Each structure stands twice: as structure tokens, then as C-alpha cells.
């Protein structure tokens, strides 16, 4: 009995010690990482934020410019809003849309809209506005250049003042996510008046927290606080100035010297410098998509899969990412980023022995041309591919070109290997279909595999998210098997801000929304 009591006491003592130990540990950790007073502070109103952009914007009318650059999307997000946003897990967050409900057959989606919202020019946001925005894109006469991505959408119609219905040609699981795309201008709701008067491209009007003020091309794009914004407490800033600073060294120098508050950066060595600077904060977020090289599967010798596989084994993505990006982007094995768990998707690792054996099996001398952008990074890719291929006896001639001739050569299939990219998207199904379905009009690699065609069709029709994810992974695996493209690295977006700039959220879909930022001192 006494022994039992002693045991119970000991257990109690151990338990109380454990509590003390945990408390001690917590206090130690908290004292080791003192809370930055700015982090604990309440959001402050007022002030001007200057954002250093890598380039000038091209415009904001989806009929004129379909895809936005990263900085263009950041600017667009301050002026325009989408029907829905997504959280880091991909769940829908209501913005201008309140709910989205599919019909039983999955071909009709009803969206309830937010009431009491107006565009910056006073036009009310309602079902008519949504129908006008979408009908303009769907009208074939307008030749909307992103129509392949929204091909299943047949019609958008008004149900009542604040309800619209999207009619689809077939079941399309990723439909709601298409409405959340940050890089496609088609996702943003724009003032019908500005669209009708053709002023939207150079003087955009949306429902967002900031209103367009002025645009001095090549210099600055200015937005000011929207006093009638539907989220009454927001925004905190009075003004955001987007300054075009194309040289990355100068952009970083301007941040360090205080002329600019936040910058976009994609240079590894500068990102490393920012990490070591206590007055700056580095925000980074991985997104899907990838830097790739397209292989023309219709042009000899790349029409032989053994040659393509040999090149894939000769290519060393790890070395390239280290040399060219200073490891500031992840290694890519598939284009889905962290959004899907496809493992290595059968990725062909660097293996010179295997590559040589495949070339031996092919039995003929291989000579190919690699076209790449005429930039430092483009040239690095060309030279590294040349060196890796040289080791297995393949001669690669490199050719640096501007973007425009590269696009022309790729579209007309007049190339062997070309630098290319898969942009970040909310759903890559439509993109992969466009580029790798044998009968697609945009099958730039000329890839033709009936198994791939079946998978691409299946992902379109699948209604179970898990099964669809599995199909997408199978597609990635088949792409690694047949090698119509090489991976040159994944995507990670970097934003560097002064420490006193607060309220910058996590980077999602390859874009950071700085609308809620505020200045801490």
C-alpha cells in the first residue's frame, strides 16, 4: 500500500516537473526570440509605399494582354478583385463571389455575388457586370487569346441581380479555381464602363482597395486609396507607387538606400545578400509551374525517344539551378509544385553512363541546335546544356535570340530545343492539354502518345479530386518517360521588403497581394 502511494506521489511529482520543464522550455524559447514590437503592433493607416518592379506593365485589358507578369499581377491585385481567392491549401475564399454551387450534372455552376460593391468609376458591381466581363471573353469575334484555358465555359448568364450561372460544355472539376487565377487578367472583374469606352488597358478600373491615379510609362504606375472600398477598415496605405527599375542591382541598391520599400527579386546572389541584411525581410513562396526546355519531338534526331532520354540523363538540373540561380529556386520533377504529391514522378536523374548507352543504341552522330533567350540566364542554359551533352557525344549549337523570334520558331516547330516555361496556374490540366495533347493546335513539341491523350482527356472529365490528382501525376510521369521537355528548375517567388513594412501576406499562386500592407513606423 505504502509502495503504491510512493509510486503515485512519484508519478505526480514527475508530472509537475514535466509541466515546469515545458514552461521553462517555452520561456527560454520566447526569451531567445524576442517579439519584434512591430509584429505585435496594430495596423496603422496612412503612408506611401514604393514597390520596385522589374519591368513596366503592358496594360490591363484581357483582350489586349492575356497573361500578367508577376509585378503586373501584384499591381492588378491592388486595383481589381477576383470572384474568389484561395488559401494555401487551395480552399476557396469569397471575395466578390460569396458562394459557388455546382448543378447535379456538374455542368452548371451558380455563383452568388457580393452586394453593395461599386467599381471605381461608380458602376455598380452586379450580375450584369460579371456577365459583361465574361461574355466579352467568350465572344469568338473578340479573339480572346486565353480562350483555350477557359474552353469548357460556354455561356455566362444572369439569374438575378446578384446571381450568375456558368454553363460548361462538360464536367470540369477545376472550374472554380480558374476564377481565382492571379496571373490571368480574365479572372479579375473590371468596370464594364471602362471596357466599353476602351480605357481599361491604360486607366484600369476595378473594385479593389486602390484606384488608378497615373501611369507614366517606363517610370511609375500610381494607385491611391479607394475611400469607398467595401472592406471599411482597408486599405491602410494612402498610396502605392510601382516604380519600374529594370536593373536588379539598382533595384536592390534603391531598397538598401531607402528610395524603395519593397522589391521583386529573382537573382540568387542578391537574395542571399538580402537574407544577411537585418534591416530587410525576405518573403518567399513556392508556386507551381517550372522553367523548362521544350524538345521538338517531330524533328530528327529528337523524334527518337532514345536521343531525348539520353539528353535528359545528360542534363544536370541540380548543377544548373546552383550555378544560375544560386539555389534560390527548387528542383522540379513535375510542374505541380507543392500542390500535388507526385514524388519524383519518374524523373530522369543525371546519369552519364545511361545517357551514353542510349546514344550508343541510337548509333548515329547527334547534332542539335538549342535556342535560348539572349539574356545572361539564357546563355548559361545554352552553354551548360552544350557542356553536359558534349560528355555523351552530342554536339549542341547554341543560339541566343530575343523572345519574339523564339516564340515564332517554337510555334512553327522550327527548332530542336528551346528554353520555355510553364507559368504558375491554379490548375495545370488545361495547360498540359494544350501543350501535349496530340491534336491540340498549340502542341509546340509535336508530342504524340495515345496514352498521354487518354490521360489528358481523363483529367478533364474526372470529378473525384483524388483520382484527378493521380491522373495528373501519371501525366507528369509519362512526360518524364518520353521527355518532350527538360526541367530547368521550379518556381519560387521572392519579395524583399524593409523591416518596417508590415502586413505582407504569404505568397500564393506566384503572386503576393500588397494591398493590406502598412508601414510600421
Amino acid at each position: 500500500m505504502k509502495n503504491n502511494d510512493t509510486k503515485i506521489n512519484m508519478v505526480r511529482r514527475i508530472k509537475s516537473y514535466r509541466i515546469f520543464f515545458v514552461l521553462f522550455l517555452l520561456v527560454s524559447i520566447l526569451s531567445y526570440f524576442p517579439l519584434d514590437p512591430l509584429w505585435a503592433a496594430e495596423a496603422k493607416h496612412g503612408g506611401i509605399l514604393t514597390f520596385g518592379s522589374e519591368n513596366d506593365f503592358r496594360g490591363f485589358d484581357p483582350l489586349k494582354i492575356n497573361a500578367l507578369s508577376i509585378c503586373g499581377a501584384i499591381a492588378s491585385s491592388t486595383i481589381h478583385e477576383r470572384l474568389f481567392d484561395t488559401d494555401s491549401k487551395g480552399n476557396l475564399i469569397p471575395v466578390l463571389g460569396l458562394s459557388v454551387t455546382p448543378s447535379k450534372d456538374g455542368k452548371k455552376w451558380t455563383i452568388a455575388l457580393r452586394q453593395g460593391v461599386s467599381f471605381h468609376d461608380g458602376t455598380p458591381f452586379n450580375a450584369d457586370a460579371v456577365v459583361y466581363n465574361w461574355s466579352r471573353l467568350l465572344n469568338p469575334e473578340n479573339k480572346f487569346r486565353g480562350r483555350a484555358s477557359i474552353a469548357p465555359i460556354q455561356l455566362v448568364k444572369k439569374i438575378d441581380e446578384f446571381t450568375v450561372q456558368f454553363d460548361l460544355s462538360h464536367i470540369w472539376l477545376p472550374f472554380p479555381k480558374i476564377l481565382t487565377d492571379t496571373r490571368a487578367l480574365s479572372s479579375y472583374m473590371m468596370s464594364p464602363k471602362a471596357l466599353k469606352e476602351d480605357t481599361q488597358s491604360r486607366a484600369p478600373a476595378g473594385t479593389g482597395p486602390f484606384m488608378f491615379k497615373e501611369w507614366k510609362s517606363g517610370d511609375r504606375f500610381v494607385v491611391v486609396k479607394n475611400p469607398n472600398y467595401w472592406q471599411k477598415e482597408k486599405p491602410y496605405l494612402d498610396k502605392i507607387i510601382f516604380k519600374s527599375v529594370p536593373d536588379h542591382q539598382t533595384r536592390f541598391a534603391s531598397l538598401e538606400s531607402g528610395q524603395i520599400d519593397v522589391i521583386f527579386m529573382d537573382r540568387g546572389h542578391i537574395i542571399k545578400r538580402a537574407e544577411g541584411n537585418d534591416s530587410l525581410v525576405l518573403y518567399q513562396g513556392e508556386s507551381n509551374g517550372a522553367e523548362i526546355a521544350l524538345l521538338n519531338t517531330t524533328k530528327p534526331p529528337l523524334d527518337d525517344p532514345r536521343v531525348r532520354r539520353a539528353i535528359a540523363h545528360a542534363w544536370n538540373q541540380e548543377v544548373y539551378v546552383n550555378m544560375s540561380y544560386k539555389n534560390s529556386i527548387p528542383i522540379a520533377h513535375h510542374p505541380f509544385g507543392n500542390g500535388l504529391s507526385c514524388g519524383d514522378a519518374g524523373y530522369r536523374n543525371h546519369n552519364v553512363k545511361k545517357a551514353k548507352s542510349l546514344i550508343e543504341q541510337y548509333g548515329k552522330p547527334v547534332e542539335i541546335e538549342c535556342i535560348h533567350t539572349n539574356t545572361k540566364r539564357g546563355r548559361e542554359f545554352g552553354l551548360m546544356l552544350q557542356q553536359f551533352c558534349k560528355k555523351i557525344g552530342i554536339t549542341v549549337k547554341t543560339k541566343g535570340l530575343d523572345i519574339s523570334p523564339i516564340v515564332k520558331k517554337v510555334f512553327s516547330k522550327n527548332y530542336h530545343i528551346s528554353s520555355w516555361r510553364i507559368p504558375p496556374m491554379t490548375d495545370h490540366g488545361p495547360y498540359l492539354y494544350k501543350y501535349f495533347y496530340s491534336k491540340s493546335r498549340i502542341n509546340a513539341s509535336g508530342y504524340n502518345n495515345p496514352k498521354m491523350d487518354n490521360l489528358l482527356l481523363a483529367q478533364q472529365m474526372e470529378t473525384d479530386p483524388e483520382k484527378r490528382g493521380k491522373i495528373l501525376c501519371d501525366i507528369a510521369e509519362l512526360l518524364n518517360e518520353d521527355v518532350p521537355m527538360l526541367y530547368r528548375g521550379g518556381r519560387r517567388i521572392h519579395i524583399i521588403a524593409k523591416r518596417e513594412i508590415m502586413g505582407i501576406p504569404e505568397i500564393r499562386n506566384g503572386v503576393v497581394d500588397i494591398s493590406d500592407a502598412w508601414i510600421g513606423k
Partner: protein
Amino acid sequence: MRDAITTTGKKLFRLFGVIIAVTAITFVLVDFLPGNIAYEIAGEEATMEDVEAVQEELGLNRPLIIRYGNWLADIAKGDLGKSFRTQEPVLEAILSRLPVTIELVVLSQLFALALAIPFGIICAYKPRTIIDNTLSSIAFAMLSIPVFVMGIILIYIFAIKLRWLPATGYVPISGGIWDNLRSFILPALCIAMVEWVPFMRVLRSDMIATLQENFILMAKSKGLPASHILFKHALRPSCLTLITILGIHIGHLIGGAVVVEIIFALPGIGRLLIGSIFSRDFAMVQGCILFITIAYVSVNFLVDHFYTILDPRILISRSV
């Protein structure tokens, strides 16, 4: 007087010919460049039909001579067209960048002359002495530094370390004269630090020759002080080559200060032109070239007339 008007008229006619020739050659050269903006506008999802539709919309599928004729006809009406890429009116884009370019060119040349004239005079007055040799060595060292390196050095010292001047951030004059000047000091200095060297060398050699002339000997024999002889008598006739080079440099900088404009993020004509060439934005390229050509020939036309003001003997010899 009548002769002068005829001469000026002939010159103006020649300048008009130069403008037509330059724009025609540029039109052909740009057309020969590989690539086509229609592909960029059509986007990554475009089909060949989409690209052709864009080409038709922009008039790029018409014969070159017709396009050039149409362009000239539009120019005659004062319409430079719209940027294919951004839809911005070309004239508006050029005019918005004009003040930036003019201010950069003027300030940089003033800085360059402020360095070149005193140092050139000193070197000419004391040729082949230790002062001349030292200044010449410094000048050549400056000349060997590429503009972009000079830009980065200036930003590091004056913007990051001392925090005296901004690294970037063009401020228009409407934003305050001091702020406007502050935003131009580093870029103008960056150009001037390289450009003052040829100015100084040319002035030095011309002034050494002038100082050998009889009228200078006469001035010396009168007992006039050295500063008076140098500035009042020798400087003006020694400036002819300097003015010629200055004219060429100004013309060159109007479209050629692109490296400085990129480093310091200045929205000037050079950056607009280079960006338009890369994206094959023909309308904008043609507009910029037209403007730069007019500016170039106008500056040199003025320089030609400035000779007679500097040295009236030229006017006399012409009339003889």
C-alpha cells in the same frame, strides 16, 4: 543676307533628305530583324491563325513599301500611331520621356564641360609638365571605366554609403526643383565622368596650337595677364573642335544614354527605344528613330551656325 537664306534653305533641304533616308533605312532594317511582335501579342496559347489575325490587325502583312508610305502619310498628319505592345500613343510616349532625356543630356554635358574646360586650359598652359601628365593619366583612367561600372560605384558611394543622393527615382520638375536635380545628379555625373575626357583632350591640343598664334604673342607682348589671355583670347578660337564633338555627343546621348537610363531607372528615350526594338514594336521604334534623327540633325545644324559666332573669321572666309 539673301545668300545666307539660300545656304540655310539648302541645309534644311539636306536635313530633310537625311531624315527621310534614315527613317526608310530603319524601316527596312527593323523589318529584316528576326521575329515578329504578332507572336508576342498573340501570346503563348496562340495558333498560327491567331498570329496571322494579329498581323492583319496591325497591318504587318502588307508590303513594306505600302507600310512605309502609310507611315509617312500619317506622319504628315502628325499621327505617329500607337504602340503595338501597350496601345500607348507613340507621340505621347516620346513627349513624356523627352524632358527626362533633355535634362539628362544638358546636365551631363554641363558637368563634363565644367571638368573639361578648366583642366583642358591648365594642361594646355603647362603642356608636358607634371600637372599635364597627372591630369591626363587621371582622365584616361576615367575613360577606361565602363559607364555601368561608374554608375554602380556612384550609387554605392553616394546612395548606399553616404545616403546623400537617391540611387533611382526620377522626380519631375513639378515635384520640386531641388528634388528634380537630386534625381539627376548621379546619372548626369555618371555620363560626365567618362565624357569630359575627350572634351579635355581636344581643348588641350587646340589651345596649345592657339597659344602659338601671332595674336597671342601680341597679347603677351602687351603684358596682359595669363588668365586674361587664356580666357579672353585663346579659349574662344580653341573651342571649335570641342563644339563639334559636343554636338555629336548631344545627338548621340538623346537615344544612346540607355545604359545610364537603365541603371538609374530613368524613363528616357533610349530605354524606350531599346525596349521597343527587343519587342519588335515597329510603331514605337519608328517614332523614336524619327525623333532622334530630327534631334541629331538639328543639334548639328545649330553647331554649324555656332562656329560663326565663336570665330567670325569663318563667316568672312565663307562670304569671300
